[in-house]
């Protein structure tokens, strides 16, 4: 067993590794991350995760629900540290996994991966407390500077392979199954389907605009009698793949998915502009890099000032335009607590994924991860681009929007801290008393 595997084993048990090993790990991680572009390309299938915030026991629950590394391909959208009591264990484990399985786990930077923020929100103090000096904090911050700013997921399927484990009597479904393709599915931590939505199968380009984004019922089911028969579902379970090779006017290839911690920036109108940023630095207080890590979508038009004091608010029109210009079908981001674990906005143009259940041991929320299946209809070849191909090769509807990927949300609750034989201190959450 290599030192790295031993470190992984130790960290999985929520036990820290020696400082010298952290130093070595961080050095190796930097060597690896420096080779990554600002926007990493990731092939579906992939499981996209939001904020972790040092909630180590919940990270273990996430792996239980989503599958282990390297079996599952993961993309974490930042905010590994701060707030929770196990930022070190959580981040170091993820980093070990990154070094051990670089092609099976992608880490991008969150606004908490910053020297300034970690001194306010707990990670710095945790390093001092657990290692007796700021050395480990410094090593980690150097790694933060090398983390990618975003990722592009390519080759996701527009249709989910049904998980087949539905609990029918508690499933809210938009039916009918026969004529629609499964677009979204929500599963609880026991793997039971609690909600699913379908959209009409794509018949021609003029029908593409009827897809049912935003988890709303399909609007045009009755108008679909002439559609092709339901495809034979031949994809491997869990990949979301379907055997939809039925020669309809369209292929089932979807637009690319941009993953970023916070959101968009008024200074960034194309994915390529993200690639031009000099990212290897502390997160600046303003500018494109800051915005990508700090901004939030909001029910406004255009851009607005953020109450966070950094980044911007951006409306549905901004998302729609950005997605269209970049051949994207979806922006996946984290950064904002959502009580249900995930939240789609703007007709499904953007989704917030939040992966820290009972955030800060206080908020009472559930968490979620988002699985995107692999599209096998094109014989497994995936176009390598930032998604710009999407407008010519992807499914283009009457309004030139590309089809969104099938989305499976696995929702989970906070892990019981005392039942896993791991050290856990009783967290104290602050209130006004």
């Amino acid at each position, binding site marked *: 067993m290599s030192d790295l595997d031993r470190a992984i084993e130790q960290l999985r048990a929520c036990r820290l590794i020696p400082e010298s090993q952290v130093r070595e790990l961080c050095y190796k991680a930097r060597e690896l991350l420096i080779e990554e572009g600002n926007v990493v390309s990731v092939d579906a299938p992939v499981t996209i995760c939001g904020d972790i915030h040092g909630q180590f026991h919940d990270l273990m629950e996430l792996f239980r629900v989503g599958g282990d590394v390297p079996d599952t391909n993961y993309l974490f959208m930042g905010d590994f540290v701060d707030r929770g009591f196990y930022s070190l264990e959580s981040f170091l484990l993820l980093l070990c996994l990154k070094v051990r399985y670089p092609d099976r786990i992608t880490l991008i930077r969150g606004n*908490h991966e910053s020297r300034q*923020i970690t001194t306010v*929100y707990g990670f710095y103090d945790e390093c001092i407390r657990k290692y007796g000096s700021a050395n480990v904090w410094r090593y980690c911050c150097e790694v933060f500077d090398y983390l990618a700013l975003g990722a592009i997921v390519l080759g996701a399927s527009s249709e989910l392979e049904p998980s087949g484990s539905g609990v029918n009597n508690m499933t809210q479904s938009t039916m009918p199954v026969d004529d629609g393709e499964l677009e979204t599915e929500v599963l609880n931590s026991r793997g039971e389907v609690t909600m699913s939505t379908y959209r009409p199968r794509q018949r021609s380009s003029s029908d593409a605009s009827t897809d049912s984004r935003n988890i709303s019922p399909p609007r045009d089911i009755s108008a679909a009698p002439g559609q092709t028969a339901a495809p034979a579902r031949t994809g491997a379970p869990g990949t979301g793949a379907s055997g939809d090779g039925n020669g309809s006017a369209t292929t089932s290839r979807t637009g690319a998915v941009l993953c970023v911690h916070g959101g968009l920036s008024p200074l960034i109108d194309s994915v390529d502009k993200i690639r031009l940023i000099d990212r290897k630095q502390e997160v600046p207080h303003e500018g494109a890099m800051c915005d990508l890590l700090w901004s939030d979508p909001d029910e406004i038009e255009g851009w607005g000032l953020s109450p966070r004091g950094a980044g911007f608010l951006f409306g549905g029109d901004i998302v729609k335009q950005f997605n269209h210009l970049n051949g994207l079908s979806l922006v996946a981001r984290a950064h904002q*607590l959502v009580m249900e674990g995930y939240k789609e906005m703007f007709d499904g143009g953007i989704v917030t994924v939040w992966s820290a259940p009972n955030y800060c041991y206080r908020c009472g*929320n559930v968490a979620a991860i988002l699985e995107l299946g692999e599209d096998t209809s094109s014989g497994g070849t995936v176009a390598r681009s930032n998604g710009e191909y999407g407008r010519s090769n992807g499914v283009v509807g009457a309004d030139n929007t590309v089809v969104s990927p099938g989305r499976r949300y696995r929702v989970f609750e906070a892990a019981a801290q005392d039942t896993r034989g791991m050290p856990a201190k009783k967290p104290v959450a602050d209130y006004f*008393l």
Partner: protein
Amino acid sequence: MAASQIPNLNLLRRGRGRGRGGSRGVEDGHSTRTSGKDRVVQGTDNDASVSRLSAVELGYLVDPYAKALTPPGSATRRFPIINRGMCAGSDTRVFRLFTSRRPSDVIYHEIDFAVNTAAKIRAIRSTPNLQRALELDPASNDVTVSEAGDALHTPFYHIHPCDLRSLSPNLPLSEALPGVDRTLPTLLISECCLIYLSPTEAAQVVTFFTGHLFGPTYAPFVGSEEVQSSPIIAPLGLILYEPIRPNDPFGRTMVSNLAARGIQLQTLNKYASLEAQRARLLEQGFEAGQAAADIDFIWERWVNEEEKERVAGLEMLDEMEEWRLLARHYCISWGWRNGNNPGAFSGWTTLQAQPGE
């Protein structure tokens, strides 16, 4: 307390004088028995003082008195979300109030556990800054401190070591809260206080003030031949600040987290909503008006943009959603009765309240 206090108060009565009762309190000076639960509640005072000091040191609040009233060595930097919130702590309001209104037209009463009042009086005695704020001359006869060091009386300021649960209508008024002028317009403030009592006890405390202490009084006879006039009913207001909404996921987590610390918010279920808070005020005699708003509402509507920007500039707040969640689970409710002075609370009628649940 010495009966000689009372004439002082009458001499010092000013037109707009307002007393102040209520606080976080629950242990009395008579009993030496302190239950574990009471100690935990007493401890919330320190917790809140530490939060206040953190907010002061980071520039959220201006309060030169916070440090003197926080136990030495307990200073801790709180997360921005707590700094932004409201924190009471060994209340410094009297010092800030008296320094901002000179000459003082307010008589201020504080009621708390003896253990908390004694600590506060010690702090006052050892801190010239606090004495100056109160314009105390230690050499003067105006200041009396009880033998146990847990009660303090000056012409304008009274600290009562008192278990609120001991306030009973059977208690002679002169003993209950010495120094209270029952005829003055009076404002009661309860900051995260009554919620620690049982619903019955909490209601009894309010009734003690509305019906007994500030029940109808009669002007003293000036001459033996004068016929007794009609009763004086002092205008009386109550402001409550406490948690609400225990039944959503955040609220349920709050209840269980606090329970793990031994803190039981006993009236939380009974007064779980803004609506229930308003109904409570009406029921308890504040018939002229009842209103409520959660802290999220108050932050959004009462705090001006300039102040919001100032606060936003102090620390980057990466907890907007959490802040809103937390702020929606605390409310301020206020109610009043006009008594013999229909205009006493006219200023309150224009306050922006939050409609609905």
